[in-house]
């Protein structure tokens, strides 16, 4: 028993060490952010006079308020619509079992592991010909399309597990297809829907390739895209860059901690099903 306890203690210590390694880059960024702006501090070094004002300065320099509301706008435009149309399609493919559905599903599966780099060049010319370059629509519209494979995969898997008898009973009670969907199946799908929504929100917030290719103005981008521009502009001022980066990643961390359980299950099921 004593040996067993010692092993448990050792296992715990190893895990703590691992956590320290994982958190180390964040810690280094944090201590660096507190140094005098424009200096080159050491990687992990608590300053004698912490410059908390750096966070305010970075907020100003990056125009964080505008970036934040831009990102929120993009998320709000992408996520509800994507979740809605993916759910409708998933319902048709998983529950209504429409004729030719298997073929349509295969078509969507094709996009499941597609690297965005594979289609970014034509998307650029397509968005340009639509006259939408440098607007938020240039991020919103393609993302909605790019999220369909996963969204449909996810929702179809959910609707496959709902017993058919439920639909039949609703039909006998006189429900048409839309009522069947909206009144019966959507309320039951709420857990799957919210997981999908959280995933898409985080992916959108963190999306980088689309903003840097399609939108020049950082203030019209997502958080991650704006951070790229911020690095380009302030890359030599390490404390300011660290402070700005921390501000930009703070919202995702807060959302993660709040929705933690949801999040982990969503991502796990997401990758398991994928």
């Amino acid at each position: 028993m004593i040996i067993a306890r010692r092993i448990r203690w050792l296992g715990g210590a190893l895990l703590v060490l691992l956590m320290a390694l994982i958190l180390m880059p964040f810690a280094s960024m944090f201590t660096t952010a507190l140094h005098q702006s424009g200096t080159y501090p050491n990687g992990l070094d608590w300053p004698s006079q912490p410059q908390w004002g750096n966070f305010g300065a970075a907020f100003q320099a990056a125009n964080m308020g505008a970036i934040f509301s831009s990102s929120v706008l993009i998320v709000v435009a992408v996520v509800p619509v994507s979740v809605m149309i993916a759910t409708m399609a998933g319902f048709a493919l998983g529950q209504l079992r429409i004729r030719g559905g298997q073929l349509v599903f295969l078509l969507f599966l094709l996009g499941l592991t597609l690297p965005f780099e594979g289609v970014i060049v034509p998307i650029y010319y397509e968005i340009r010909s639509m006259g939408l370059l440098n607007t938020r629509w240039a991020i919103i519209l393609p993302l909605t399309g790019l999220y369909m494979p996963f969204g449909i995969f996810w929702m179809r898997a959910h609707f496959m597990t709902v017993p058919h008898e439920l639909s039949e009973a609703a039909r006998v009670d006189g429900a048409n297809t839309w009522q069947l969907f909206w009144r019966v199946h959507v309320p039951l799908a709420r857990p799957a829907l919210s997981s999908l929504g959280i995933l898409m929100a985080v992916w959108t917030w963190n999306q980088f390739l689309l903003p840097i290719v399609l939108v020049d103005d950082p203030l019209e981008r997502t958080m991650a895209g704006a951070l790229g521009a911020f690095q380009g502009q302030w890359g030599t001022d390490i404390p300011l860059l660290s402070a700005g980066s921390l501000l930009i990643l703070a919202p995702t961390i807060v959302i993660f901690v709040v929705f933690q359980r949801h999040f982990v299950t969503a991502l796990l099921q997401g990758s398991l099903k994928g």
Partner: protein
Amino acid sequence: MIRTTTSSPREDRGTSRGSASRALQVRVRDARLHGWLFVLPALTAYGVFVLWPLIQTFKYSLYQWDGVAPAQWTGLDNFKTVFSDPDLISALEHAFQLIVFFSGIPVILGLAVATLMQRLAPRRISAVARTVLFLPQVVPLVAAGIAWSWVLSMSGVVNQVLSALGFGGVTRAWLGDFGTALPAVGVIGAWVLLGLCTVLLVTGMSKIDPALYESAQIDGAGALREFLAITLPGLRQEIGVCVTVTVVAALSAFDIIYISTRGGPGNATMVPGLMIYQLAFFNREVGLASALAVVLMVLVLVCILPIQWLTRKTSDA
């Protein structure tokens, strides 16, 4: 890959139950038509912003085009360039080298950490570790790139620790050194993906029947034998998922490299994703960029399909 629950058409039911059920059948048939209306919005979005661009990528790859002047048909010339130009070949090679870091380290280390969490460490620490390990998966890759550029820089934590341990001689700007830049980028990817793999594997381990371990212990099996005979086969599907996700991440790496090295020094960390971006939007070689994009997409499929086939086949039976 696609799991279908057994679904035989239910039309044979209630054929003799009179007009009410006939009306029901009509509605079910209507529903199948209406069903297409449900698929239509998603199909439109997907068609316009994925399928159509996909076709265009294939089309562009057969032309020489600077994005402005009329395009010139060149057949497969762009593909010949992809497989003969040393810069492009080395970009493809780097993508495969990154697999070692993006997939190899997270899966192997993930197995060790998952075992530790599941069987050895105190429960409460394991729960906290799950959350912490998952954190890199949530923050933007761009932020990870910025943080790690700083950690791996000349005055960063890595060199600080090395100097403190008396290895001052090996300190360097890890991302700026031709020999270490690619492995350094790989370490960043491993840091991001380790948590996802670990948590996936822990979840898989908790589904393995504990009775299997008990009987193995009665048979006198050691820890290693237990791991090889019970844990590893039981995790087949989860390992498959880890490998799939991480291989795709390695082959299509972009954000981390764009932020930390921009493909440098020289071309030491150039990867296909970044190359496509530069060729298309800076060198104005849209055709060549598209050919590389086609090659990248085919490579992803060629790597993924065998993994799916190997890891799903028996677990579904």
